[in-house]
């Protein structure tokens, strides 16, 4: 196994599990430290620069960072740091950040961009490019900006004032909005004088369920996302007493909880797959069940029962999930069981969403694949037409807000490169800042001791009151004190253990003091697999890298398993020659127009 190249920014980036897992690569530990220091506005801005919607995401993010969190691997029921809820702490307590937000140059740079759809992807492109002076025209058929964040996320999860604040931060940069305006032809848009067009139209079509009784019962059967939008815009304010929600994703969870607030007393979620395989986030399932909504799994809808023109019930076939040798799942009906009948007044179908591009002419040079999806480049977000870019759910199908933001940043880079006659394929490299955090023999600039606290629970609003009013936010967010306690659970994985082999005298002090047995000094190995078998403690997580350094006097190598490192700094404290140092590694994804620079290395003071 060859020595690790720590000059490659991707190596230490991988060690920061949360940031690495985040599609937008938000520097999570950095803002968590700022929250601990009560520098909420700065914590908010670290988020804002990277993920654009800290207040919104602090409530609604799919949190790919949390399953990745190192804390969750420490055993004994340890759970991830409540990263998402800490983001909300920054947003809730930030105060006025107006002075910290960038502004547009004041006059346009002569380039005009059309943004179709006013959801998170388009808004991200708008923010990145407005600051550079682009003239941005934002089109949406809704009357306000926000896209699916407005139409599909219920107000009890995302209050409108939070949504408006962060949408307006972007629109106030001088974006020209064209709301209540539906685009029916991309060719027509392209025929105008736009230098580029960004398509961020999401996945707006809810999948229907064509089983017997669908058309007869149509009056009481609705598509989930259409129902949510109708509620959000005030067109729907009631639903029947007994509601069946079909589907197991987050939309189904939003539908059932919304129903509970509109008069639904007996609301059930019925899903085809086993409970554990449901697409909904675990916490959303818990929230639904806490509102007295049972989730019935392994039920496949069979028929809508309509009597005298009125929907009476839905029947289901009971199935079990059978897994083939290759892991492929099939849902097999259980023999000899009668169909299950669930009486209801209304049904909401939330079984998936599709993209829909009837408005894109097929002769513009944009290639569409067998699923009628545009063929989009995963790096540039461009397509067969030089001036058209895609992002968010419209690029590769339904994902989530944070993914749409990540797409938006990259599409903005492409549009900027295109408008400056540069090669859109020449992507800017990330920039990195790295520097020692040593302030004394046993002193670090970060909170190196590791808190033993278990994950703190977010308080919730009174259940009766929140079920009465759909605009009452359920989660209350952490108070400052609990938020602080939660920050102390963060292991500061971005404060890297950096090893300088020529200084090492191989005294074993680091090996002896490391609480989680990460460090080994051993003979060099041919392969990583072999090396993993003879470390101080078993390195059983192959997705976590080994840090290998050679150049020791004895010819041995230093191997550190990054998997369970607590970043407590004890190795560096017990090192007599400062061969170990704790260095903060700030990885920054370059955004539009930021000139890529050589990674800046701070000079260690020692």
């Amino acid at each position, binding site marked *: 196994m060859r020595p690790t190249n720590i000059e490659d920014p991707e190596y230490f980036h991988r060690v920061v599990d949360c940031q690495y897992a985040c599609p937008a690569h938000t520097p999570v530990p950095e803002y968590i430290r700022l929250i601990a220091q009560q520098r909420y506005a700065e914590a908010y801005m670290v988020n804002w620069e990277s993920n654009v919607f800290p207040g919104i995401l602090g409530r609604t993010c799919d949190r790919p960072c949390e399953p990745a969190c190192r804390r969750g*691997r*420490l*055993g*004994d029921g340890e759970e991830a740091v409540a990263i998402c809820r800490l983001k909300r702490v920054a947003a809730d307590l930030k105060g006025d950040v107006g002075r910290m937000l960038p502004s547009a140059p004041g006059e346009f740079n002569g380039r005009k961009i059309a943004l179709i759809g006013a959801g998170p992807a388009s808004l991200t492109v708008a923010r990145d490019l407005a600051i550079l002076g682009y003239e941005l025209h934002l089109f949406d058929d809704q009357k306000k900006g926000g896209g699916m964040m407005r139409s599909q996320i219920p107000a009890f999860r995302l209050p409108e004032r939070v949504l408006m604040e962060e949408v307006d931060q972007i629109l106030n940069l001088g974006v020209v909005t064209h709301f209540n305006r539906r685009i029916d032809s991309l060719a027509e848009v392209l025929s105008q004088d736009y230098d580029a067009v960004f398509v961020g139209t999401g996945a707006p079509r809810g999948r229907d369920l064509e089983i017997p009784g669908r058309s007869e019962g149509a009056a009481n059967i609705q598509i989930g996302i259409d129902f949510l939008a109708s509620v959000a815009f005030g067109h729907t304010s009631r639903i029947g007493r007994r509601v069946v929600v079909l589907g197991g994703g987050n939309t189904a969870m939003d539908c059932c909880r919304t129903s509970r607030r509109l008069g639904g007393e007996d609301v059930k979620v019925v899903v085809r797959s086993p409970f554990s395989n449901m697409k909904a986030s675990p916490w959303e399932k818990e929230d639904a069940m806490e509102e007295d909504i049972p989730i019935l799994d392994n039920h496949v809808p069979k028929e809508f029962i309509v009597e005298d023109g009125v929907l009476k019930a839905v029947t289901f076939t009971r199935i079990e999930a059978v897994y083939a040798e290759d892991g492929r799942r099939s849902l097999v009906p259980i023999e000899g069981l009668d169909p299950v009948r669930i009486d209801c007044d209304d049904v909401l179908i939330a079984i998936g969403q599709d993209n829909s591009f009837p408005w894109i002419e097929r002769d513009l040079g944009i290639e569409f694949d067998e699923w009628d999806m545009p063929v989009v480049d995963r790096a540039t977000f461009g397509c067969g037409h030089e001036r058209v870019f895609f992002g968010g759910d419209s690029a590769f199908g339904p994902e989530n807000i944070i993914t749409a933001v990540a797409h938006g940043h990259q599409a903005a880079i492409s549009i900027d490169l295109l408008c400056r006659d540069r090669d859109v394929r020449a992507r800017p490299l990330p920039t990195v800042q790295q520097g020692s955090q040593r302030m004394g*023999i*046993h*002193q*670090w600039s970060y909170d*190196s*001791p*590791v808190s*033993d606290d278990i994950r703190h629970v977010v308080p919730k609003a009174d259940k009766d009151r929140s079920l009465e009013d759909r605009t009452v936010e359920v989660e209350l967010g952490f108070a400052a004190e609990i938020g602080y306690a939660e920050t102390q659970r963060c292991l500061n994985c971005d404060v890297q253990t950096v090893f300088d082999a020529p200084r090492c*005298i*191989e*005294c*074993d*002090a680091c*090996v*002896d*003091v490391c*609480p*989680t*047995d990460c460090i080994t000094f051993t003979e060099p190995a041919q392969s990583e697999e072999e090396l993993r078998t003879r470390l101080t*403690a*078993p390195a*059983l997580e192959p997705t976590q890298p080994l840090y290998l350094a050679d150049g020791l*006097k*004895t010819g041995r190598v230093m191997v550190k398993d990054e998997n*369970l490192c*607590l970043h*407590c*700094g*004890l190795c560096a*404290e*017990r*090192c*007599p*020659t400062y061969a170990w140092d704790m260095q903060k590694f700030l990885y920054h994804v370059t955004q539009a127009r930021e000139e890529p620079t050589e990674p800046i290395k701070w000079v260690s003071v020692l």
Partner: protein
Amino acid sequence: MSFIAPNFRHPEQGANGLGLRRSDYEGALSTLCAGCGHDSVSAAIVQACFEMDVEPHRVGKFSGIGCSSKTPNYFLNHSHGFNSVHGRMPSVATGAILGNRDLLYIGISGDGDTASIGMGQFIHAARRNLDMLYLVENNGCYGLTKGQDSATADLGSVSKTGVATELYGLDLCALALQSGASLVGRSFSGDKSQLVQLLKTAIAHRGFAFLDVISPCVTFNNTPASTKSYDYAREHIDVAGALDFVPHQSAIEIDYAEGEVQKVHLHDGSELLLEKVGKDAGALDDKTAALAAMNRAQDAGRMLTGLLYLDTELPDLHTVNRTVATPLNQLGQDELFPGLDALEQINAEQS
């Protein structure tokens, strides 16, 4: 700011035969200088006791004064301990050992505590073959008082003072051997695999087990011309044969060619497999051969490490003194005051 060790441990860190984890054998976070060899010795003791299924509450730790003598605080937090007067650890340990022979006794000393102020106590503890592990963390200097040369500093060795030592250094292994110790070994804090094997052997042994462990002082005596530095030790060590300690619980069959390996049975049923090096290597209980091997190494400017001498037949002080097997604190009224009849019987036997 630390001096605070996190409470998290590697989740795959398994339990030993007693259901204890290695962390159950740890002590306080060390306050010795960063990089001190003594910390490696502490870690090796933790490792050996963990692997030997030693019950922490059945261990007595004894020490005198010095950096080395601080270290019992850094391992086996759940054991008994006595931090005694400078150089007087053997006396206190003798009392404890005579009082209760059921415990495992670990004495930690340094080259100052043993080779200078405690020399008299040390050689008599060896002579009595006290049933204990006596470990000297030998760094050739008085670290706690700013690094003056100690009695084990080799002639010509230069510490941070910059002045070469003008006197001969004492060889504690030779002294222990001459004085009657039944197990003598030498190791290096930077060679943990060997040290752990030696410690396990010493723990299984009944009698005075003496280990001289070269344990560099990073602050005062890790200089290029020091003979007790990390680099010097690594470059000048000769290993007197690889040790393989086979604990009595396990029934591992190891294939060794005839004559290459010497098997030794230890008191607790464990076995020791010792690889023979060189055709002139004598038997393990050959005192003359052991001394000669040490002298040869010294003449060649080398440091001989490993198990140098082992005599499992030599009676320990309990055997010699015919002391009672029951710990004194468990003796009751009847045993301590057997009564007039018993006295008369003894008197009759004597007359």
